[in-house]
């Protein structure tokens, strides 16, 4: 959709109509609300302002009613949802601020810049709080990268291009900015071919007393614009790109994608942190979606004040920009701040030192209005609170799907069959295979805090200088299971992220979420959303992990088809002693390998994976089957396992830990070997269920750990205290990788074959010009 522009007329002169409002994405009701708030017709500029602030992306109008059900409180929470990022206490007078955000639509239209500016945006949300960003993780989802049933060669090639562009974009921004990209996940499912998902998590650290908030105050205080100059990039990025479906004309949205400069952002970071030390800054917010508009009205609204701005003073890198252009521009690397009157020179001097513009463009007023002037006239005059906080809150209709998830039969292998070929196929599938081709493009070591980088463990681990502490971070989402059962899929995402953090030895401490869904005007999508919220709430409460903030991305549809509901969770954990951090690789020949099961002794007689096997990675890769239900999530079992892992790490009772997830136990064992210095494993599980289920079933609340042979008895006693079953299943060795179910050896391969299948697959797939048949 093109926004109508009448050349030659000032925006204030254009007569706004209800049709024009519709073109801007406002419904008739919303437009009526605007009229009521203003007590008159809006002018064209004001229409633009409302259209972005009340877009789904900025206002959360479809999600707010449900987000209220998320648990956001806890003794460790310093700041919950509502500010630029959530903040938690991590001890020693320090706080961690972190948040997950999406940049899905721009990444489809322009993968490199879409992903790059996604990173830039979330980094600014962190340092606007006064915290230095110390880590980035990303959760990426694309369509299949090789042709398969349902995906033709052309689509697969485009998916490869998207993957390549997104990864290069994240690397471009993060590496130059100087923050390590230390982990994440990459998934491939057909539903994302037209709607890739790019969710980025950033973490920062600050002293508690150095935290900054975005609450304007002090009538007469100067409002300063700092950072890059404003241009026409990204106009309507929030409203037309992020808040609308894709169709055949989506390529035309390229001008709506923002363009990033990480070098400028690095200068902005240093300047902001230094300026914050002066004590002369009252409030600060980054200019993200809807740039100057959102930063000003949100800061004003939070502070119960108004802001008067003069756009003639805005540093511009294009000529002839209108007020509409400047207010809606999403040019990157800019912040808006309020300084103490009389001390603004202290602030501008810091920005001058770093070579950045810092210009007073307005003042804080007492009348609660966002008042914008341009070329001598007032071009917009809107109550800030109404604009920022009084977008409609919709109770969109919800309708569960008519048909219940049907059980699907999965062909099963004969008893005692050799599963090695299937094992190697799953191992080499893009979903499971090593992501080294991707993460080696990211600088994951800069700032010398990375103790466990990508691939080393289930969570990234970063030390916190100068303390003895470390932080662990994992990001996990779930599309396929959430499609089959949104509530269970969402619970599973929380459980997996928390379990991953626990496998590094850390205590899960707080969470952030990114909820990627389709068009909320579809009742089935709203049902999925509501169910997912309930699943997240239940899991976060049970595991005592409050949600401190996050992001919702709706309208991930193309040509009327929605993506799978995809809740993504980022969980932060704390390790009291950094040296207790664990990785997944086996450490010593002769070490004993144990399977920990949070179900405890009832694990021996638990229903196996039969009912949920049809939703597994194995079923999809080997049989092309996706159906039935995900494995039931037992939060009590997950919690027991998490607490045991923390204790075992603290007491140094284990030397490695890796949870059982995608691909099941066989894959977990293979990954523990691949991450080690050349070790292999010979393992055996009891034949209480079919070998395929035992080896590739994905029931949660399980982890594979290893320890010195002398420490096994102690570990089993510890596990017993926590109600967790610890079953010896094998020994770390060399040479053959062997897994037996009962007396039958079902997987048997040289460890070099296993490593090559897992390690070389993704690079081969991506770097071939022709797709595999």
């Amino acid at each position: 959709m093109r926004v109508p522009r009448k050349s030659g007329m000032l925006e204030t002169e254009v007569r706004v109509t209800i049709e024009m409002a519709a073109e801007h994405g406002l419904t008739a009701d919303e437009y009526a609300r605007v009229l009521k708030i203003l007590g008159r017709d809006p002018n064209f500029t004001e229409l633009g302002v409302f259209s972005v602030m009340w877009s789904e992306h900025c206002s959360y109008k479809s999600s707010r009613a449900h987000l209220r059900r998320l648990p956001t409180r806890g003794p460790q929470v310093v700041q919950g949802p509502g500010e630029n990022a959530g903040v938690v206490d991590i001890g020693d007078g320090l706080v961690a601020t972190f948040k997950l955000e999406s940049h899905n639509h721009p990444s489809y239209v322009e993968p490199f810049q879409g992903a790059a500016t996604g990173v830039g945006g979330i980094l600014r949300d962190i340092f606007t709080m006064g915290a230095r960003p110390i880590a980035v993780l990303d959760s990426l989802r694309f369509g299949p990268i090789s042709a398969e049933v349902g995906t033709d060669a052309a689509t697969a090639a485009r998916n490869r291009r998207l993957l390549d562009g997104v990864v290069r974009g994240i690397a471009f921004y993060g590496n130059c900015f100087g923050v390590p990209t230390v982990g994440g996940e990459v998934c491939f499912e057909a539903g994302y071919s037209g709607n890739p998902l790019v969710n980025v998590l950033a973490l920062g650290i600050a002293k508690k007393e150095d935290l900054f908030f975005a609450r304007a105050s002090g009538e007469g205080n100067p409002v300063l614009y700092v950072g890059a100059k404003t241009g026409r990039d990204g106009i309507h990025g929030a409203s037309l790109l992020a808040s609308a479906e894709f169709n055949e004309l989506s390529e035309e949205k390229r001008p709506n994608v923002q363009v990033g400069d990480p070098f400028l952002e690095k200068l902005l970071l240093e300047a902001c942190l230094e300026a914050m030390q002066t004590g002369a800054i009252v409030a600060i917010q980054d200019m993200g979606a809807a740039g100057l508009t959102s930063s000003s009205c949100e800061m004003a609204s939070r502070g119960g004040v108004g802001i008067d701005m003069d756009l003639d003073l805005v540093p511009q890198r294009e000529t002839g920009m209108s007020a509409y252009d400047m207010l809606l521009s999403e040019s990157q690397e800019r912040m808006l701040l309020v300084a103490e009157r009389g001390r603004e020179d202290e602030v501008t001097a810091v920005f001058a030192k770093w070579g950045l513009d810092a210009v007073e463009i307005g003042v804080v007023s007492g009348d609660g209005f966002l008042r914008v002037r341009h070329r001598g006239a007032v071009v917009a005059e809107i109550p800030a609170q109404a604009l920022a906080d009084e977008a409609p809150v919709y109770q969109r209709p919800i309708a569960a799907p008519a048909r219940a998830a049907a059980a699907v039969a999965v062909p099963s292998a004969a008893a005692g069959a050799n599963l090695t070929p299937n094992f190697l196929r799953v191992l080499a599938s893009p979903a499971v295979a090593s992501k080294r081709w991707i993460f080696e493009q990211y600088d994951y070591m800069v700032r010398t805090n990375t103790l466990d980088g990508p691939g080393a463990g289930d969570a990234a681990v970063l030390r916190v200088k100068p303390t003895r502490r470390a932080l662990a971070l994992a990001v996990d989402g779930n599309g396929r299971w959430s499609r089959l059962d949104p509530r269970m899929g969402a619970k599973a995402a929380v459980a997996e992220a928390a379990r991953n953090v626990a496998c590094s030895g850390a205590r899960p401490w707080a969470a952030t979420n990114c909820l990627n869904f389709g068009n909320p005007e579809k009742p089935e999508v709203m049902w999925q959303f509501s169910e997912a919220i309930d699943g997240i709430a239940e899991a976060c409460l049970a595991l005592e992990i409050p949600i401190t903030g996050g992001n919702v991305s709706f309208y991930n549809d193309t040509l009327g088809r929605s993506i799978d509901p995809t809740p993504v969770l980022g969980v932060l954990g704390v390790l009291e002693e950094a040296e207790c951090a664990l990785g997944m690789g086996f450490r010593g020949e002769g070490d004993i390998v144990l399977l920990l099961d949070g179900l405890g002794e009832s694990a021996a007689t638990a229903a196996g994976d039969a009912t949920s096997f049809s939703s597994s990675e194995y079923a999809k890769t080997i049989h092309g089957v996706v159906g039935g239900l995900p494995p039931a999530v037992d939060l009590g079992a997950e919690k027991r396992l998490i607490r045991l892992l923390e204790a075992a790490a603290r007491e140094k009772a284990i030397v490695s830990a890796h949870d059982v997830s995608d691909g099941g136990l066989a894959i977990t064992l293979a990954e523990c070997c691949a991450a080690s210095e050349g070790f292999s494993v010979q393992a055996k599980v009891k034949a209480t269920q079919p070998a395929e289920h035992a080896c590739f079933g994905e029931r949660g609340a399980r982890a594979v750990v290893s320890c010195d042979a002398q420490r096994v008895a102690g570990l089993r006693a510890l596990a017993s205290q926590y109600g967790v079953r610890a079953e010896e299943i094998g020994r770390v060795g060399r040479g053959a990788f062997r897994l037996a179910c009962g007396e039958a050896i079902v997987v048997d391969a040289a460890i070099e074959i296993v490593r090559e299948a897992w390690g070389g697959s993704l690079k081969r797939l991506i770097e071939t010009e022709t797709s595999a048949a």
Partner: protein
Amino acid sequence: MQFGVVVFPGSNCDHDAWYALGTVLGQNVRFLWHQSENLEGCDAVILPGGFSYGDYLRTGAIARFSPVMRAVERFARGGGMVLGICNGFQILCEAGLLPGVLMRNTGLRFICRQVDVRVESVETPFTAAAEAGQVLRMPIAHAEGNYFCDARTLADLERNSQIVFRYASPEGRITAEANPNGSLANIAGICSRERNVLGLMPHPERAAEAMLGSADGAVLLRSMIASLARARAVPA
């Protein structure tokens, strides 16, 4: 003794170098702002890694013109110890303090990984504490680390033992497989004729503590410290 770490707009690894020398190895370290021509009595200067000036134009191309570089050039020509790490190596080449250039990696992508380098010469203040042929494990993180110089320059470097580090296998063999970026003759680091200026692509400051994966980088840093101490101990 005083170490100085230069900070250009866009330097990222300045804090890492400061931490390794200052906190891990207990040395006096200060930051030197790019606009100052005063090296403030530093005995050794480090040009750290990062993206100075955003790598605009060419990596290191703009940094070489900054005021601090005039001071660094004078210091180097006077025999002062200068270490250029990654972007710092690129800047030294742009400034003509070291020969050759760093081009784009042959794979055309950024690479972050641990690599092994073999010490080719212990006749430098940066490697005096190492043994000839010793293999050090240090990480690289760059998109432009492909060292190149013309045949005559290469012959000079070899004749004068100016090649200090080469990418190698863990056992110390110089192979194509061990070369991550296509560098000529597997060159990972070189020194000046007078041996007081060293540039290398791997990051010793990221390999100064076992907890980070390798402490081999400390060998280089300790060599520098010992060399400076020896120089001080010599009576005037």
